[in-house]
């Protein structure tokens, strides 16, 4: 066919090639629509219109099945990797910064890694110290860049959860649960203590009090609530986050009503405390 002819998905696909058909639906594109059924018959891709539609049906079913499965796995997986990388980069930077501070202190230098990185080293030992401080600085920069990446991607993986929890906490919950689907299946009592597994274990062993919250403690609605009401706030927040995770996983629709309901619940809990 000539370059001018509008090219449909079937253009370079052999009628028997189901895998090629799937790939063409998934990866192809065109400037605009055209009478594809008619063109396909003309190009001998299909015997008639009915034949065309049954081929199209097989190809779209295959493409949608494969692509949704792959994307579903890929998205929350990628988010989890970038969040964990962010944590690792930050933890390692802190650890090395402590080493730099200790070493720099022994030389009577300022202990701040950023300041050490800017020093002119004299002896070979000083050169190593300055090099190490430079690494600390770039690791910190990488942690910040990873944080930005998580903040940008979390809302598309879990729009409602990210709106209610903030993108970082949302990503952390997904990561701790082992994926969005796993999170969506957890009861809210489990989400509430995610990240407090050690405390929970100690409680189950006997003696220790049961933890009231895990990583959701970092949420303003828990941390910023009066200690007497904090357990209720954590329970209310976990309840709404659980619903948000389920909506994200099962429908993908953004429901701004959830935000408002959560705001109102917390407001009521906090004023009850004042009263």
């Amino acid at each position, binding site marked *: 066919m000539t370059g001018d002819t509008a*090219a*449909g*998905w079937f253009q370079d696909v052999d009628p028997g090639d189901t895998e090629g058909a799937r790939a*063409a*639906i*998934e990866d*192809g*594109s*065109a*400037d*605009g*629509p*055209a*009478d*594809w*059924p008619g063109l396909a018959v003309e190009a001998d891709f299909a015997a008639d219109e009915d034949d065309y*539609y*049954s081929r*199209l*049906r097989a190809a*779209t*079913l295959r*493409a*949608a*099945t494969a*692509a*949704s*499965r792959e*994307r*579903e796995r890929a*998205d929350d997986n990628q988010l989890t990797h970038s969040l964990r990388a962010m944590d690792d980069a930050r933890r390692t930077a802190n650890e090395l910064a402590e080493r730099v501070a200790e070493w720099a202190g022994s030389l009577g230098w300022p202990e701040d890694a950023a300041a050490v990185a800017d020093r002119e080293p004299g002896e070979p030992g000083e050169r190593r110290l300055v090099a190490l401080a430079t690494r600390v600085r770039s690791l910190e920069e990488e942690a910040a860049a990873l944080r930005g990446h998580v903040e940008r991607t979390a809302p598309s993986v879990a729009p409602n959860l990210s709106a209610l929890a903030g993108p970082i906490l949302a990503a952390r919950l997904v990561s701790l649960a082992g994926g969005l689907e796993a999170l969506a299946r957890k009861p809210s009592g489990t989400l509430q203590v995610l990240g407090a597994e050690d405390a929970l274990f100690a409680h189950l062993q006997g003696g220790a009090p049961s933890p009231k919250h895990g990583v959701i403690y970092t949420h303003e609605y828990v941390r910023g609530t009066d200690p007497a009401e904090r357990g209720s706030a954590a329970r209310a927040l976990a309840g709404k986050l659980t619903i948000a995770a389920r909506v994200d*996983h*099962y*429908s*993908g*629709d*953004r429901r*701004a*009503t959830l*935000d*408002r309901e959560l705001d109102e619940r917390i407001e009521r809990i906090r004023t009850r405390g004042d009263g």
Partner: protein
Amino acid sequence: MNLPEGVQYRTIGGDRTLATRGPQVSDESTDEGWRAWDPGRSKLGAMLDAGMETGLTGGETVLYLGAAAGTTPSHVADFAGPTYAVEFAPRPVRDLVAVARDRDRLFPLLKDARRPETYAHTVEPVDTIVQDVATRGQAAVALENRQFLREDGRLLLAVKARSEDVTREPEAVFEAATAELEEGYELLDRRRLDPRHEDHLAVVARPR
């Protein structure tokens, strides 16, 4: 009132309801092959139930934007012709595929409705666009997809105010959306779908 061929009011499970005839979806209630189509759960169903002039007659070619798990698209495919169902969230597409497997001419597409070039190689010109994307920029999506609509075709659009801006008055959001829509469409009818669908506006339009 003008219901398309293949859509009727029936009594199913004791309730009078809109219905289409087609393969059962999960464990919904049916009666002699008729499936209840609940206007409370479907904006297109609510438009038909409200007696809006949708131009649907049955058998037409449809592009459905925002297909979700396929609840409404399944009814559309029951009475319409070839139905192209676009949805960009992977999870609901899993259910949409299940619905499409039982039907001959319902084509699921995991695509972003804001990027029509990624499915223009698959979708033919259509008689009707049904749009229910509940996302920001709903008028822009309708304008970008206008290229799929035949000259005498119809856009059946649901605008969800809260998806555009939670803080603004719904009426203000609707005004802005319909004004933007008029860049490419002539508006034939508009109606609020409250109370069934809170803060939703239904629009019937044709390309200009």
